[in-house]
C-alpha cells in the first residue's frame, strides 16, 4: 500500500512538473516576436543596430521571467517535493500503525 502511494506521489510530481513547463510557450512566442521586430528595425535602420540589440536582449530577458517561474516550479517538483511528500507519507503511515 505504501509503495503504491509512493508511486502515485512520484508520478504525479513528474506530471505536475511537465504541466508547469507549459509556461515555456508564452516566453517562446513573445521572444520570437521581439526578435522579429528587432530584425525589422535593424533592417530599416542598420545604423541603430547596437541600440536595438541591447534593448532587445534586455526585453527578452524580462519576458523570460514567466517561463522561469514555470521552470522553478518544475525543478522544485522534481528535486524538492518528493523528499517533503515522502516524509509526510512516512509520518502518516507511522501514525496509522
Amino acid at each position: 500500500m505504501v509503495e503504491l502511494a509512493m508511486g502515485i506521489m512520484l508520478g504525479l510530481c513528474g506530471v505536475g512538473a511537465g504541466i508547469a513547463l507549459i509556461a515555456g510557450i508564452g516566453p517562446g512566442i513573445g521572444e520570437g516576436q521581439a526578435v522579429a521586430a528587432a530584425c525589422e528595425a535593424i533592417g530599416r535602420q542598420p545604423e541603430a543596430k547596437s541600440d536595438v540589440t541591447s534593448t532587445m536582449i534586455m526585453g527578452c530577458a524580462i519576458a523570460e521571467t514567466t517561463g522561469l517561474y514555470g521552470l522553478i516550479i518544475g525543478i522544485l517538483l522534481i528535486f524538492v517535493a518528493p523528499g517533503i511528500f515522502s516524509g509526510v507519507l512516512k509520518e502518516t503511515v507511522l501514525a496509522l500503525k
Partner: protein
Amino acid sequence: MTEFKGEKGARSSPASRGDAPMTRDSRFRLVDGLLIALMAAPLLCCLALKVLFTPESEGVDISGAMIYLTVPGFPLQDLVITESQINSWAIMLSILGLCLYLTHGLTEKGGTKRQLIAEWIVEKCEGLVSANMGERFAGYEYLIAAIMALSALSSLSCLIGLFAPTGDVNVTAGWAILVFALVTYTKLQGGFLNYLKGFTEPIPVFTPMNFISEFSLPVSMAFRHYGNVMSGAVISALIGAALRGLSKTLLGWIPVIGQIPLLQIGLPAILSIYFDVFSGLMQAFIFAMLTMLNVSGSFPQEAWEKRQERKAIRKQRAALAKA
C-alpha cells in the same frame, strides 16, 4: 571619484619625494602583492572549505548550497551558515581587493593601465546611471556598480568550481528586498499620504491588485536572477552526468581508456560559455538595469514639488512668527 584621486595624489607625492626610489618601488610592489593575495585568498579558502565538506558521491548530484554550520539558540530557527553566505562574503572581500588594487597608486597624470581600467569603469557606471536615472539620482552609481560587480562575480565564481551564490534564492531575495526598500523610500519622498493614495489608483477597487503588484517586484527580481543561474547549473549537471553515462556505455569495454569519461571533456565547457558566462553577466546587467528603472520610475515628481513648496511656505511662516 575625482576628489578621491586628487587627495590620493596629493598624499603620495610628498612621501615619494622623501624616500629613495628603490625602496618606494619595492614597497609599492609589496602592497600590490598583498592586494592580489587579498583577491585570491578568499576564493581559495572557499574552495578548500568546499573540498573539505563535500561528501563522496557517485552519479548525478544536484543539490543546493551545503550547510557548513548550524548555530542553535536563535528565536525563529537555528541560524544556518551555508555555502552561499560564505561564498558571497568571500566574493565581497575579493571585490574589495580588486578595487584597492585598481586604485592603488593613482596619479593625476594617469597613464598606468590599471588607472585607465578604473577610470573606464567609473565613467561607464556614471554614464549608465545618468542616462537611465537622470540628474536627481546622482550618487546611485556606487550602489549600481556594487550590485553589478557582486552579481557578475558571484555568477562567474562557478567557473573556478565554487557554488555560485546567485544560484541560491536567499541571496538574490536579499538583494531584491534591498531594491524594494529603496523603491519604497523613493516613493515616500512625496509624503506618506501620497504613498498611500498611490494604492487606490486609478479607482479604489484596484487596491488589492496594487498591493499584489507592489510585492511582485521583489519576488520577480529575485526569481529571475535565481532561476537563470540555477537552471544553468542544473542543466550543466544533467548534461555532465549524461555524458559520463554515455561514455561508460560506449567506451566502457576498453580496458584502461574506458575508465576515463572521455566524452565529458570539452562539451560541458562550450555549454558553460552560455550558461555561466553569458547568462550570469546578462542577469547582472538586467538586475542593475531594473534597479535603476524601478527606483527612478517610482519617484513622484509632482507630489515632491508640492511638498517642497509647502515646506518652504511653512518655513517662511515660522520665520515670520519668530520675527
